[in-house]
């Protein structure tokens, strides 16, 4: 309910991750009843995921990095003004001034974040000297990279290595220049830094430490020459500065708020600045002399700010800066006092394996009981356990060294979820404790998804996914909840298990399956859940016609009659138009058939033509005419391959780089008739302009100069999801082989009615695991997956052609067994020159 009073004006300056999190908190906690919220974002994009910024060069775009749907602000009732920079806070007039106007405020939250520090080196403003912070920065780097063969990152810290990864992604010869004596000096010590250097150099990135750049000038062979303190030089085309960040506190300085000696807006436990009407959160805020340059503390500040704005109790009390990273593919972890220099008397345990390049270090209290800090390079697998020992002050085992020794030297005592106290923080981004998770389960959550929905745990950085799952599983088990994944009351198996049974035992009919493996206590009919699921499994495995007598009672009505039932009991008919390519003659036939049988005609989203309003008894005649003209069934009724949408490609388009229509037709003809857990859609685009919208499909293919980039697990529909880049520059054969494996693996392992997008989100190990299985054959099943797909391809036959040649099957297409008259209750009316249900 809206408050009857005039709402207070709350202005949030900054639309980064922390500013956006505050908006979510305000929306979720009913604060919009009290405040009219306006958010100013200087960038043109709405808030996006800066943690994963470097993925922008490996296929993700601004939209997929965005933290919310495009209409989130509008539908939540928050005004978001992107591309509008605040230039002044006028505290005497209580107004915020932008380049476009003045806005009155009652409260302000500063969430302006930080800016990259560019060292004061002569020549640092030359063209091609850039920074790495925003999407626009990345666009600038990408543009500059087009005329570059090599690039240098100044700064070997966390962000510097991220930037180096981005330059590698642009195929530049990359070097990192660090002032200190090792990489990541904040997080690792000399041993760790040396190991990190070896690993990163092995990736082809040049690492130069103890280098202070004196000046940047014209190069002989490249655009720039960097001159160092010892007059050594390095030539490069492109320079990215990533030498640390500084709080963006200028607005606060200009309006005389209290600023720390080395920058940052001073805030108290409630995130209030020296003017209580103005709050500050995130990397601009200085709390207890500290700036917190990670997202999790920023989120905690946002929660404290919410409490301040809504008279709640939550306070910010500092944050743990432990962090787990994967930089250039190298694991780096840092927990607490990793260097051991904040705790006098602390003892160190070190393990260094120069062969596998793994380094682990623990900082332990002088009595050997408590973990004070830890450092990991090359392998973060011990991170979760060590963090729990540290964060929850759990007493260490008698031999603490066992925590960092390799597994083979004895069973490493991993800290099971049962050993964690209720107060243990599982997800630090959303501050979810084990106690919160237990409460959610006690309130009725029965699985991981339910717990995630309620608590938001593991929806931030995702670093706690595995830990969360083990806690949820453990707690469910402890409550005696056997997570029942039975498909229905007739089988105590999941779809995946049924699939394996069918394959291994070669079971070819539903009655055999339910006879051998159904639950004993029911009689053997099955139901509308298990019957279509088993029908789909049988079709995926053996590809017998679904209208065969043994299979027909299993099918949903759409499969039974091979057409899509509409709301008045009539059907729609969709012949296959592979790749959306159709001859004029075939178009004319479609028109003639539609006219003859009075069918409403509409072009579908999948580039074919849907004919609606066909009566059951007319279906065989309609298909007779279509097949005569060379059409075949389009499986629009099946959980199977639907369409392969394509743009016109290099044959006509002046931008196209490959024949996308040709490829689309090849693919559609290869996979047509494949029955799967849910429908499957493909798209093939002839260039990066992506006119076929391939990234919204289960399988998306985008042409490159060198072949095809493959994207997987996208979705349009109710929950849109961008497909993820899976493999690049494949040739035709590689593309078919990869898709063969991918689709068969999906068919094997997905739940019933689970689209590839949801399947992928539920897959333990995520995209990396999928890549291991499909691209590296980690399970050793790829030959089998390819063979299975080849069987499906080889046994394809048009179901409609099969049905109309069989009088027994045609008997089914009678509205009434004792009367030829059509159903008189189907009544049509005319609209825009066509028929529709009355």
């Amino acid at each position: 309910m809206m408050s009857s009073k005039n709402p207070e004006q709350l202005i949030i300056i900054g639309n980064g991750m922390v500013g956006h999190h505050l908006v979510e908190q305000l929306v979720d906690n009913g604060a919009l009843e009290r405040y009219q919220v306006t958010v100013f974002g200087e960038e043109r994009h709405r808030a996006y995921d800066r943690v994963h910024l470097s993925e922008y060069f490996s296929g993700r775009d601004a939209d997929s990095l965005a933290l919310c749907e495009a209409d989130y602000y509008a539908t939540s009732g928050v005004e978001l003004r992107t591309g509008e920079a605040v230039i002044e806070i006028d505290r005497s007039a209580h107004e915020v001034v932008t380049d476009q106007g003045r806005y009155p405020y009652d409260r302000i939250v500063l969430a302006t974040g930080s800016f990259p520090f560019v060292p004061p080196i002569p020549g640092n403003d030359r063209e091609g000297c850039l920074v790495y912070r925003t999407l626009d920065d990345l666009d600038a780097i990408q543009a500059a990279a087009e005329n570059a063969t090599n690039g240098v990152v100044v700064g070997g810290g966390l962000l510097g290595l991220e930037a180096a990864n981005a330059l590698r992604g642009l195929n530049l010869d990359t070097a990192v220049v660090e002032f200190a004596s090792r990489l990541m000096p904040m997080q690792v010590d000399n041993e760790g830094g040396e190991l990190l250097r070896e690993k990163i150099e092995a990736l082809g990135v040049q690492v130069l430490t103890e280098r202070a750049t004196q000046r940047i000038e014209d190069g002989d062979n490249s655009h720039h020459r960097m001159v160092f303190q010892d007059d050594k030089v390095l030539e490069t085309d492109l320079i990215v500065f990533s030498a640390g960040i500084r709080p963006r506190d200028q607005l606060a300085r200009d309006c005389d708020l209290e600023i720390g000696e080395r920058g940052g807006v001073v805030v108290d436990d409630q995130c209030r600045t020296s003017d209580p009407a103005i709050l500050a959160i995130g990397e601009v805020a200085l709390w207890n002399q500290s700036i917190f340059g990670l997202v999790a503390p920023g989120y905690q500040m946002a929660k404290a700010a919410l409490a301040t704005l809504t008279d709640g109790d939550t306070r910010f009390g500092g944050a743990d800066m432990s962090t787990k990273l994967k930089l250039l593919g190298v694991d780096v972890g840092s927990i607490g006092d990793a260097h051991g220099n904040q705790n006098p008397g602390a003892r160190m345990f070190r393990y260094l394996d120069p062969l596998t390049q793994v380094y682990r270090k623990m900082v332990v209290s002088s009595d050997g009981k408590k973990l004070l800090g830890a450092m990991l390079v090359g392998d973060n697998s011990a991170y979760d356990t060590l963090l729990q020992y540290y964060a929850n002050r759990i007493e260490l085992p008698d031999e603490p060294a066992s925590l960092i020794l390799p597994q083979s030297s004895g069973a490493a005592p991993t800290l099971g979820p049962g050993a964690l106290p209720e107060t243990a923080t599982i997800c630090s981004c959303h501050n979810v404790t084990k106690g919160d998770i237990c409460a959610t389960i006690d309130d009725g959550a029965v699985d991981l998804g339910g717990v995630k929905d309620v608590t938001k745990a593991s929806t931030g950085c995702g670093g706690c996914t595995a830990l969360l799952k083990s806690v949820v599983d453990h707690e469910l088990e402890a409550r005696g909840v056997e997570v029942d994944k039975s498909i229905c009351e007739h089988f105590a198996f999941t779809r995946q298990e049924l699939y394996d049974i069918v394959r291994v035992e070669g079971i070819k009919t539903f009655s055999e399956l339910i006879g051998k493996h159904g639950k004993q206590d029911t009689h053997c009919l099955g139901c509308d859940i298990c019957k279509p699921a088993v029908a789909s499994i049988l079709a995926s495995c053996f590809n017998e016609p679904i209208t065969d007598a043994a299979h027909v009672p299993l099918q949903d009505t759409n499969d039974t009659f091979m057409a899509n039932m509409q709301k008045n009991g009539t059907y729609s008919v969709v012949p296959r138009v592979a790749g959306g390519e159709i001859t004029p003659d075939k178009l004319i036939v479609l028109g003639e058939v539609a006219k003859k049988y009075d069918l409403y005609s509409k072009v579908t989203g999948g580039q074919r033509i849907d004919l609606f309003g066909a009566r059951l008894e007319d279906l065989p005649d309609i298909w007779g005419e279509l097949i005569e003209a060379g059409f075949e069934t389009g499986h629009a009724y099946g959980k199977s391959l639907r369409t392969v949408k394509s743009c016109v490609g290099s044959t006509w388009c002046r931008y196209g780089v490959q024949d996308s229509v040709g490829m689309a037709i090849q693919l559609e003809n290869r996979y047509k008739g494949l029955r799967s857990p849910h429908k499957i859609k493909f798209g093939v685009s002839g260039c990066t302009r992506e006119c076929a919208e391939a990234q919204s499909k289960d399988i998306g293919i985008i042409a490159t100069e060198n072949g095809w980039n493959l994207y997987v697990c996208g979705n349009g529909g109710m929950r849109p999801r961008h497909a993820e880049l899976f493999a690049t520059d494949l040739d035709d054969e590689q593309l078919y082989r990869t898709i063969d494996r991918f689709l068969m693996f999906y068919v094997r392992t997905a739940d019933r009615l689970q689209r590839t997008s949801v399947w992928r989100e539920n897959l333990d190990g995520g995209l990396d695991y999928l890549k291991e299985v499909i691209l590296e054959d980690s399970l050793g099943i790829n030959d089998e997956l390819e063979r299975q797909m080849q069987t499906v391809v080889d046994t394809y036959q048009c179901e409609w052609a099969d049905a109309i040649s069989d009088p027994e099957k045609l008997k089914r297409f009678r509205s009434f067994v004792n009367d030829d008259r059509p159903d008189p209750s189907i009544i049509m009316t005319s609209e825009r020159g066509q028929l529709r249900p009355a």
Partner: protein
Amino acid sequence: MTATAMKKEMDTMAWQKVCTKVDLVEFSGVAAWLETADGPAQVAIFYLPGQGNELFALDHHDPFSNANVIARGIVGDLKGAAVVASPIYKQHFRLEDGQCLEDEDVKLRTWKIEFKGDEVWVEG
């Protein structure tokens, strides 16, 4: 009730042959017209060979969608009772008495049905 009226009711309520065994689909349904006291009715006929009760006749009309489609639903059993699922919005109806499992206020009409040799007879 007069003798004539009684005679007429006897006639329309009489057993009628609607089809033969070959018209049926095992473990599934077909639709047929039936003459009843209230006029012609569309009837869904289900055939479950080998079960105690092999034949069932109930309304072909689906009250939730108002379309005549019940014969085209999937047959199964839920908690021990044979049912058909409407192909439109998937509600389940008990074959024995037409009761909807999702909504106790909704019940399909049922008719007596049996084989006479290979012929299928329904009491209208």
